[in-house]
């Protein structure tokens, strides 16, 4: 179908984008890669009054190193993340997880920041941003603020970004001695995750010293599997990892829908956590 009518603004700086959002009022929306927004518009599930296109904002297209952090601009696409030398050298978990997102064409347009701003619980990258301890730089009419990923996701398709704000960059700490793996379970190529698990592990003397486990699609926001994380600390054998991973779904309330029942999702969370952590031995 053809999207509903809207006005269009093509700012070239972040400040212009914020003014355009302010001028257009509550129903304006930012468009980045458009790979989530345009399907919604085509199906007429959304009807913004104005689209503010970030495509022409050059300052959002950079990846740079800032001490122990890699700063990824809001218009950096999934494809760029995959080939970027800084990302591959310092946050390889992000590159590996991004390779499981959608398909080549979508990855050429869709952005890392857009997948976070979209806050889809089935999106792969929110859980990855969570375990990496990323923080999000948001600009609005009253200046800039930085929000940790753990406080960014509010609910299904809802983040803390206000209608007159723009997410400008994602700050991702370097992994250093942590190793990571994203495991995604879906039924068909190009399918969304029924469940996904992002695991990040630091080892000492042959055992796991610390672990972080992020869950995709196990609730209305991405989650940390805190009980599994605690149980993984000190794990020094496949059996210990297996027992700890089995707790991945503790305290979660995954949805029960046509694609998968809640029990099945809980089972998958355990299996995928074990696979992800075991692959990091």
């Amino acid at each position: 179908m053809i999207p509903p009518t809207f006005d269009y603004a093509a700012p070239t700086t972040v400040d212009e984008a914020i003014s355009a959002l302010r001028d257009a009022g509550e129903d304006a929306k930012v468009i980045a890669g458009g790979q989530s927004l345009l399907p919604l518009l085509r199906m007429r599930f959304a009807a913004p009054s104005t689209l503010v296109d970030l495509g022409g904002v050059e300052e959002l297209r950079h990846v740079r190193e800032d001490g122990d952090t890699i700063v990824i601009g809001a218009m950096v696409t999934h494809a760029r993340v995959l080939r970027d030398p800084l990302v591959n050298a310092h946050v390889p978990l992000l590159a590996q997880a991004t390779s499981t997102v959608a398909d080549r064409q979508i990855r050429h347009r869709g952005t890392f920041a857009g997948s976070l701003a979209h806050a889809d619980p089935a999106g792969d990258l929110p859980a990855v941003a969570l375990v990496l301890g990323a923080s999000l730089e948001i600009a609005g009419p009253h200046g800039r603020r930085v929000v940790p990923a753990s406080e960014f996701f509010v609910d299904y398709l809802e983040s803390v970004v206000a209608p007159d704000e723009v997410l400008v960059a994602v700050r991702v700490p370097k992994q250093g001695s942590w190793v990571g793996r994203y495991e995604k379970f879906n039924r068909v190529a190009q399918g969304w995750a029924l469940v996904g698990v992002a695991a990040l592990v630091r080892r000492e003397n042959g055992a796991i010293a610390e672990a972080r486990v992020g869950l995709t699609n196990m609730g209305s926001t991405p989650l940390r599997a805190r009980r599994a994380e605690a149980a993984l600390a000190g794990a020094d054998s496949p059996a210990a990892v297996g027992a700890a991973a089995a707790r991945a779904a503790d305290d979660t309330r995954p949805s029960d829908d046509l694609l998968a029942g809640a029990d099945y999702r809980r089972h998958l969370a355990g299996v995928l956590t074990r696979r992800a952590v075991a692959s990091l031995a």
Partner: protein
Amino acid sequence: MTRVSMKVDGVEYEDDVEPRTLLVHHLRESLGKVGTVVGCDTSNCGACTVLMTDPEGRKQGIKSCSVLAVQADGREITTIEGLAGPDRTLHPVQRAFHEAHGLQCGFCTPGMIMAAVDLLTENPDPTEAEIREGLEGNLCRCTGYQNIVRAVREASAEIRSAGGDAEPAPPSPRAGEAQTPDSGLPRQDVPDETIPQPVP
């Protein structure tokens, strides 16, 4: 209306478009590039795949149903109609689809070929698994994919043995004057019957 300019299959076009116009509709209905088709409403099927430059000028496969025409302002686009060489020799991927029987009804073919060209540009010698993954954004309801994968392998071998790359040849400087859909119709010559009309 918003003014956009883009180069499609070697020809510069300037048009006023409604911001909500999808790139695929602009290509088909304003520019007559009806080789590019629409197969779904959900951005899944890939039938509408064309190559478009990114801001750094890198040509990459995109789903033209999932890009607004205004977002393509200033970009360069190659559709299936601009893939053959200036003398109308088929691109190696087109030839391989023909020879390896990589199509049946042909509806997915324009998008499938453009996605294969995009893949081979980045990875000139993909394994079978890499071809299947590289084409995961394109659905075919006829072939079962076997012959599509075979065609891409054959095209890859042919391109490498000729020492070239998968990038489409630059269109001839006279593409703008050409009268065949293969190299782009001047705008005013878009035949009426290619423009969808509402059913009375």
